[in-house]
C-alpha cells in the first residue's frame, strides 16, 4: 500500500500550500473564475480588475473596519462546474466569507445553489456570493436567495435598454434574433420578443438558437438572415461564436446594426477592427467614451499596471466599493447576515462611472445606468490595445428601475 503513503505525503503538501496563506488578518474575497484553459483571458482580466479596484478604491482609502486590508484570493475554476464547487469549498475551508464569480451563468447557478445549502447547513460559517457578471435573469428571479448579489445589469435589463434605443431608430422594421442554445441565449430571445412587442411595431423575422461553440461556419446563418430581409440583428453570442457570426454577416453583405451583449474586448474588438466599425452595438453598464475625468485617471493607472488588460467589466469597481461600504456599515466581516442586510437596498453613488447604483432589496439586482455604444476608432479608451473601442450612443438612466421580479426573498 505504497499508494497511501504517497497520498499522505501529497495531501500533507497541499495542506501546507493552502494553509500557509490563511492566517494574515485581512478580509478576503475568493475570486473563482477561469484562470487556465480557453476562457482564461476573461477570468484573468476580471482578476486584474478586482485586484486593482480593491487596492485603489478600498485599501488605499483606508481599508475596512478601521484599517483592515481587503485581499483578493484567486482560485481557478477552469470554467468547470465541479471544479468551481471544489474551489468554493476550499475557500470556505480557508475561512473566506466572500465569493466573487462572474463567468458563465451555469456556474453562477451552481454556486448560488451551493451557497444557499451551505449557509443553511453551517450557520456559523455563512458566505456571501458576489455575482459580478453572470446575467441569467433567473438568478434574481426564481432562483434568487438572500446571499446572492448581482452587480451587472441582467439580460432582461440590458434588453430593456436595447429596445429603448431601437424604438428610436425608425429605419429598423424587421429584426432577426439569433443566439446560442442555452439558458442565456434563450433568455435574450425571450426578452427581445417581449420588449419589441411592447415598445415597437418591429416585425421579428427570425428567432433561432444554434448550438453553443459547435458551429464551424456561420455563412449559412448569415445567408438566412440576409434572405429574411432583416434590418438589424440582436444576439447574445460571445467568444468565437460572436466573431464568426459578425464576420460572416459582413462578408455576406449585411449592412445593418448588430445589437450584442459581448462584442468587445477579449480579442473581439481587436479581431473585428475596421470591419466592425458602425456595425457592432454593444449594450452594457459603465461604458466609457466619453469617460468621467476620474475614470480616465483610473484607467490610466490601471493600464500602467496591467497593460494587457482592459477595464471591460466596470461593475467590479462598484462591487468592490459597495462591499467595503457594507462591511463598514455592518461593522463586521464575520456576520454575513449583517453584511448582507447592509448591502441589501444600498444606494451608492459611483463617481467613477457617473451613475447611481441601487442594490434592489427585493431581488438583489443592481439598478444602474445602462448604455448602448458603437464600435469605433473615435475613442479615448480603447480595447485590446487596438485603437478601437466602444463609444456611448445612448444612455438609459437607472434602467428597469421598477421592473417586476418573481423573486420571493427568504431572509434569515
Amino acid at each position, binding site marked *: 500500500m505504497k499508494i497511501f503513503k504517497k497520498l499522505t505525503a501529497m495531501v500533507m503538501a497541499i495542506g501546507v500550500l493552502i494553509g500557509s496563506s490563511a492566517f494574515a488578518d485581512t478580509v478576503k474575497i475568493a475570486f473563482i473564475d477561469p484562470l487556465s*484553459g*480557453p*476562457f*482564461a*483571458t476573461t477570468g484573468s482580466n476580471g482578476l486584474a480588475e478586482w485586484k486593482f479596484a480593491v487596492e485603489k478604491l478600498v485599501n488605499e482609502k483606508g481599508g475596512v473596519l478601521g484599517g483592515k486590508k481587503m485581499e483578493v484570493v484567486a482560485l481557478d475554476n477552469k470554467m468547470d462546474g465541479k471544479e468551481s464547487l471544489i474551489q468554493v469549498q476550499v475557500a470556505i475551508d480557508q475561512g473566506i466569507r466572500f465569493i466573487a464569480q462572474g463567468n458563465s451563468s451555469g456556474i453562477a447557478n451552481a454556486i448560488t445553489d451551493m451557497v444557499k445549502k451551505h449557509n443553511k447547513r453551517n450557520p456559523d460559517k455563512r458566505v456571501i456570493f458576489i455575482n459580478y457578471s453572470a446575467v441569467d435573469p433567473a438568478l434574481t428571479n426564481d432562483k434568487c436567495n438572500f446571499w446572492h448579489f448581482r452587480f451587472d445589469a441582467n439580460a432582461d435589463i440590458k434588453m430593456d435598454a436595447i429596445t429603448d434605443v431601437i424604438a428610436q431608430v425608425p429605419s429598423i422594421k424587421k429584426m432577426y434574433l439569433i443566439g446560442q*442554445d442555452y439558458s442565456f441565449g434563450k433568455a435574450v430571445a425571450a426578452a427581445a420578443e417581449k420588449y419589441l412587442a411592447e415598445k415597437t411595431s418591429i416585425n421579428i423575422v*427570425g428567432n*433561432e*438558437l*444554434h*448550438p453553443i*461553440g*459547435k*458551429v*464551424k*461556419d456561420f*455563412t*449559412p*446563418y*448569415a*445567408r*438566412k438572415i*440576409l*434572405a429574411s430581409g432583416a434590418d438589424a440583428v440582436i444576439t447574445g453570442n460571445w467568444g*468565437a461564436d460572436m*466573431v*464568426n457570426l459578425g*464576420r460572416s454577416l459582413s*462578408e*455576406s*453583405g449585411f449592412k445593418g446594426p448588430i445589437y450584442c451583449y459581448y462584442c468587445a474586448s*477579449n*480579442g*473581439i474588438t*481587436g*479581431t473585428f*477592427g475596421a470591419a466592425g466599425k458602425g456595425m457592432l452595438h454593444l449594450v452594457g453598464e459603465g461604458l466609457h467614451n466619453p469617460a468621467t475625468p476620474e475614470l480616465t485617471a483610473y484607467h490610466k493607472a490601471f493600464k500602467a499596471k496591467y497593460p494587457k488588460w482592459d477595464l471591460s467589466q466596470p461593475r467590479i469597481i462598484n462591487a468592490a466599493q459597495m462591499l467595503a461600504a457594507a462591511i463598514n456599515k455592518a461593522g463586521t466581516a464575520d456576520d454575513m447576515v449583517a453584511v448582507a442586510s447592509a448591502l441589501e437596498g444600498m444606494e451608492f453613488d459611483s463617481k467613477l462611472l457617473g451613475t447611481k447604483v441601487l442594490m434592489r432589496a427585493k431581488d438583489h439586482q443592481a439598478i444602474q445606468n445602462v448604455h448602448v455604444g458603437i464600435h469605433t476608432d473615435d475613442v479615448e479608451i480603447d480595447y*485590446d490595445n*487596438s485603437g478601437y473601442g466602444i463609444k456611448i450612443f445612448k444612455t438609459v438612466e437607472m434602467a428597469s428601475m421598477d421592473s417586476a421580479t418573481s423573486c420571493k426573498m427568504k431572509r434569515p
Partner: protein
Amino acid sequence: MDLIIINIIDGLIYGLLLFMLSSGLTLIFSMMGVLNLSHAAFYMLGAYFAYQISLVIGFWVGLIVAPVLVTILGALVERYGLRRVHQYGHVPELIFTFGLFFVIEESVQYIWGRNMVPYNSPESLNFIAINLAGGSIPAYKVFMLLVSVAIFVALYYVLARTRIGMIIQAALSYPKTVEALGHNVPLVFMGVFGVGTGLAGLAGVIAGPSLTTFPGMAFLLGSIVFVCVVVGGLGSLTGAFLASLLIGWLQTFAASYNIGAADILIAMGYEYPKDVYYHPWRDLWTLTLPQIGPILPYLLLILVLVFRPYGLFGRRDS
C-alpha cells in the same frame, strides 16, 4: 432558389476545406494504419504559423511557408515520437496522437495566448467577387475554393500519375509487399506523415482568416474530420472526398432551413401546446433543424459504423 445555389456553393467551400484535412488524414491512415487524432492540431498550427508570418512579412509568404513548416514539424513528430510508440502497438499509437493534440493545443495557447488572434485575409482579396440575388460571395472564399480544388487536382495527379503515387497506392492495398519490394518504408512513413499534416496545415492557413484563428479551432473541427474519414471508409480517398462534401452540405443546409419539429408534429395532427415553456415535451416542440445541425454528422457516424463498420467506401479492416 437563389438561396439553394448559394448554399450549394457555401457547402462546397466548406466541404472542400474538410477534404483538405481528411485527405491528409486518410493518407496517413492508409500508410501507417493509425488514425492521427492530432490532425486538427496541425491545422491550427498552420493558421497560427501563417498568422505569425503575416505579421512580419505578409499573407502570401505565409501561405507558402507555413504549410512547409507544418510538414517539417509533422515529419519530426513521426520520426521521434510516433515511430517509438509504434512498437507498443495500435492503441498506444492512438493514445500518443491524442496526447499530442493536447500538447499542441496547450503550446499554442502558451505561445500566442488564449484569445483569438487578428489573422485576416489580405487586402487584395477584400472585395466581393460574386453577387447573387440576396447574398454575396467574397473574393477570399473564391480563393479558398480555388486552392482546395488545386490541391485536389494535384493530389489526384500525384497519386494516379507519378511513381511515388504508385507506391502509395500499392501500399494502400498491399503494405507488406511494398516493404518487401525494398522501398524504404520508414522514410515513406515519415514523408507521408509530414505531407499529411502539411495538408492540414495548408487548410489551417486558408481557413484561419475565414473561420477565426483561436485556440479552440482545432477542437471545433477535429472530431468532424474524423467523421469524414470514418464515414467515407478508413483508408479510402474517394470515400473521404465524398464524405467531406456530404458533411459540408449537410451542415450548410441544416443551418439554412428552420424546419422545426413543431411543423412536423402539427402536420401529423398534434396540437401545438398552449404554454409550450411548461409543457413536458417542450424540448421536442421547440426543436429546430439548425439546433441539431452540428450533431447530425455524429449521428451519421454512429449509424454508418453500426451498419457498415468499414465506412461507405472502406475495405480494409482497421
